[in-house]
C-alpha cells in the first residue's frame, strides 16, 4: 500500500514535467492509432471504389448471346434459376438490342420534347447484382426480386439529380415500341459513376413488357472468393449450354482489388514506418527526460536512502510512477480514440461505399503496449541509476 501511495505521490512531484511526458505519450499513442486507422480507411476507400466498378474480390463476367429462338418468358425463367454454389453470388445484366431511354412524361419517343431527359444508361439486372458490386442505398430500397412486382427503378445519384427521388414516376421507351412504360423510382444508390444510371429488374420487363426491347445478350456475373477462372468457365458453360444460351466468349475477371493491394500495402507499411520512427523519437525523448530527472532528484533520492529506503523501493517508485502514468495515458488515449471514431463514423456520408471502420482494437493494443514499453524504457535506466546512489552522499552534499 505504501509503495502504491509512493508511486502516486511521485507523480505529483513534478506535475508540469509529468503532464508534458503524459502529453507526449498521449500524442504518440494516438498517432499510432490514427496512422493504423487511416491506413485501414484509405485501404477501405480504395477497395470500395474498385469494387463499385469491378465487383468484389473475385468477380468474373461471362458474356452469352441470346438466340432469337429463346423467348423473353424463357429467358426470364432461365435467369430466375441462375447457377448456384455455396459462397458464390451470381447476378446478371441483360443487354437490349436497342437503346432504352427515359422520359419524365408519358410521351412516346417519337417527336416528344416534353419531359425527355438526357441520355441515361438503364441496367436490366437480376440475381445478386447489388451484392456483387458495392451499391449502398442512400434513400429508399433496392429492387424487389419478383417478376410480378410493379415496375421499379433505382437511380444512381446523378440520375436522381435529373429525375428526382423515390416516388417519382419515370417512363421507359425504346425504338421498338411507340409506347412509354411507367416505372417508379424506389431508391437511390451510390454506384461511384458520374453519369446517370438507372437499375431495374430485368425479369419484370421480360415477363410483363416484352415489347420494350429485344434481349441481345446476357452478362453473367459470378463472385466467389478463391474460385479459379477455369472453374467459372466450366460452370457457366454448362449452365449456358443447358439453357440454350450462346456460350461464346470466355469468363474474365473484372475486379482489380488484388492488383492494387500491393500498392495499398506499401502505403500502409510506409505509414507504419513513420509511426515507428516518431515513436522511437518520442521514446528517446522520454528516456532523456527520465535520466535528467534522476540527476535533478539525486539529492532527494539519497536522502530517502539514508532514511531507510531500499534500492528496490526506489526502483519500484521510479518505474512504478512511469508505468502508472503510461497506463493512465493509454486508457485515456483508448477512450479518446473511441470517441474520435464515433465522431468519424457519424460524419461518413449515408451512402458511403466503405464499411465504417471498427474500433481499432489491435491499434489500441499496440498503442498501449508502446506506451508501457516507452515508460519502461524511460524509467528502467533512471531507476537503476537511482539504486546505485550511495546514501553516504547525503552527508557530503
Amino acid at each position: 500500500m505504501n509503495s502504491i501511495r509512493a508511486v502516486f505521490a511521485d507523480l505529483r512531484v513534478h506535475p508540469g514535467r509529468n503532464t508534458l511526458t503524459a502529453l507526449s505519450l498521449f500524442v504518440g499513442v494516438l498517432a499510432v492509432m490514427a496512422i493504423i486507422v487511416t491506413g485501414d480507411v484509405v485501404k477501405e476507400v480504395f477497395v470500395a471504389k474498385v469494387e463499385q466498378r469491378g465487383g468484389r474480390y473475385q468477380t468474373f463476367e461471362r458474356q452469352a448471346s441470346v438466340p432469337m429462338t429463346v423467348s423473353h418468358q424463357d429467358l426470364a425463367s432461365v435467369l430466375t434459376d441462375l447457377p448456384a454454389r455455396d459462397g458464390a453470388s451470381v447476378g446478371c445484366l441483360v443487354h437490349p438490342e436497342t437503346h432504352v431511354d427515359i422520359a419524365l412524361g408519358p410521351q412516346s419517343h417519337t417527336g416528344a420534347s416534353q419531359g425527355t431527359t438526357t441520355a441515361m444508361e438503364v441496367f436490366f439486372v437480376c440475381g445478386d447484382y447489388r451484392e456483387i458490386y458495392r451499391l449502398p442505398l442512400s434513400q429508399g430500397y433496392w429492387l424487389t426480386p419478383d417478376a410480378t412486382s410493379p415496375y421499379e427503378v433505382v437511380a444512381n445519384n446523378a440520375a436522381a439529380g435529373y429525375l428526382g427521388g423515390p416516388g417519382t414516376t419515370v417512363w421507359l421507351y425504346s425504338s421498338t415500341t411507340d409506347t412509354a412504360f411507367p416505372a417508379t423510382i424506389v431508391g437511390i444508390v451510390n454506384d461511384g459513376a458520374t453519369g446517370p444510371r438507372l437499375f431495374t429488374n430485368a425479369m419484370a420487363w421480360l415477363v410483363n413488357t416484352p415489347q420494350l426491347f429485344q434481349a441481345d445478350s446476357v452478362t453473367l456475373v459470378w463472385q466467389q472468393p478463391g474460385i479459379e477462372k477455369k472453374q467459372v468457365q466450366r460452370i457457366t458453360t454448362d449452365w449456358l449450354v443447358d439453357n440454350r444460351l450462346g456460350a461464346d466468349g470466355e469468363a474474365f475477371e473484372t475486379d482489380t482489388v488484388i492488383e492494387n493491394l500491393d500498392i495499398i500495402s506499401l502505403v500502409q507499411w510506409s505509414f507504419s514506418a513513420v509511426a515507428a520512427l516518431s515513436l522511437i523519437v518520442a521514446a528517446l525523448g522520454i528516456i532523456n527526460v527520465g535520466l535528467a530527472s534522476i540527476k535533478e532528484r539525486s539529492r532527494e533520492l539519497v536522502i530517502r536512502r539514508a532514511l531507510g529506503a531500499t534500492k528496490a523501493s526506489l526502483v519500484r517508485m521510479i518505474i512504478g510512477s512511469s508505468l502508472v502514468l503510461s497506463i493512465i495515458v493509454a486508457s485515456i488515449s483508448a477512450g479518446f480514440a473511441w470517441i474520435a471514431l464515433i465522431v468519424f463514423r457519424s460524419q461518413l456520408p449515408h451512402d458511403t461505399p466503405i464499411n465504417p471502420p471498427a474500433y481499432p482494437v489491435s491499434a489500441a493494443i499496440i498503442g498501449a503496449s508502446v506506451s508501457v514499453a516507452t515508460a519502461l524504457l524511460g524509467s528502467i535506466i533512471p531507476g537503476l541509476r537511482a539504486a546505485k546512489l550511495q546514501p553516504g552522499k547525503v552527508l557530503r552534499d
Partner: protein
Amino acid sequence: MDYLIDASGISMKVPLPGRESLQVVDQVDLRIEAGQSYSIVGRSGSGKTSLLSILGLLNADYSGSLLMSGVDVSSLTDRRLSVLRAKQIGFVFQSYSLIPHLTALDNVLLPCVHAGLRRREGLARARQALDEVGLGDRLSAKPAQLSGGEQQRVAIARAIVNHPQVVMADEPTGALDTDTGDSVIEILMERVPQNKIALIIVTHDADVAGLCSQHYFMQRGQLSKMGSLAHSDHVAPIANAEGS
C-alpha cells in the same frame, strides 16, 4: 555487554586521482552506549563525517568490525541495512536535507514509511514528533516556508519519529545562528536521558561539544578520546587542529 554500536579497527580509504588513495578513517575503535552523548570534534577533512557515515550504515566501503546491538552489520543485505537505518538510527544533517516538495508532516513521515509502519500509525507518530519540537502548527508547511531553525527542528522530528536507539547529528547547528542553534541542541540533548538514546554529534562548535558526556577528537582519520572537558579544555584541541 552488547553496545548499541561497537566499532573495532574501522578503516576507510578513498581513491584519489591516479593510483593513490587517502586514508580518511584509520583504525578507529568506538563503543556507543544508550543514554550517553558523544561529541566528535576535529578540523575539516579529519574524517569525522566519513566515520559518521560508516557508523550510520550509510557507507559500506570500510574494513574492520562494526556491530550494532551485537549484530555484525557487514553480513547484512541492503534491505536489512535499510531497515536498521529506518528503525534504529536517526539522522540530523547540517543542511537539514528535507525533501522540498513534501510538507513538514510528510518529511517526518518518511522514516515511518520506510520502516514499514501503517500510514495511520506513522502519521500519529509524525504529528507527535513535530509537536515535541514545537512545530505542531506547521504540519502542512513546506521547507521553503520554514525558517532555518524550523527546518532543522523538522529534521530532528524526522530523526526521532521512529524512536531510534542512536541519533547522529552532523554539524546540526552549522547553518544556524547561535540562539537558534542553542534551541536545536537543547531539543536533541533532552532526548538523551528522556528516551535513553545515544546521541553522536559531529561538530566544530566547542560549546556544542561541551554539552556532551563523552568527547572524541579526530585527526588524520584517527579517533582519540578526550576525557571530561572543561570549557577551556575542549576548545584547545580544535583550535590546535584548525591551526595545524
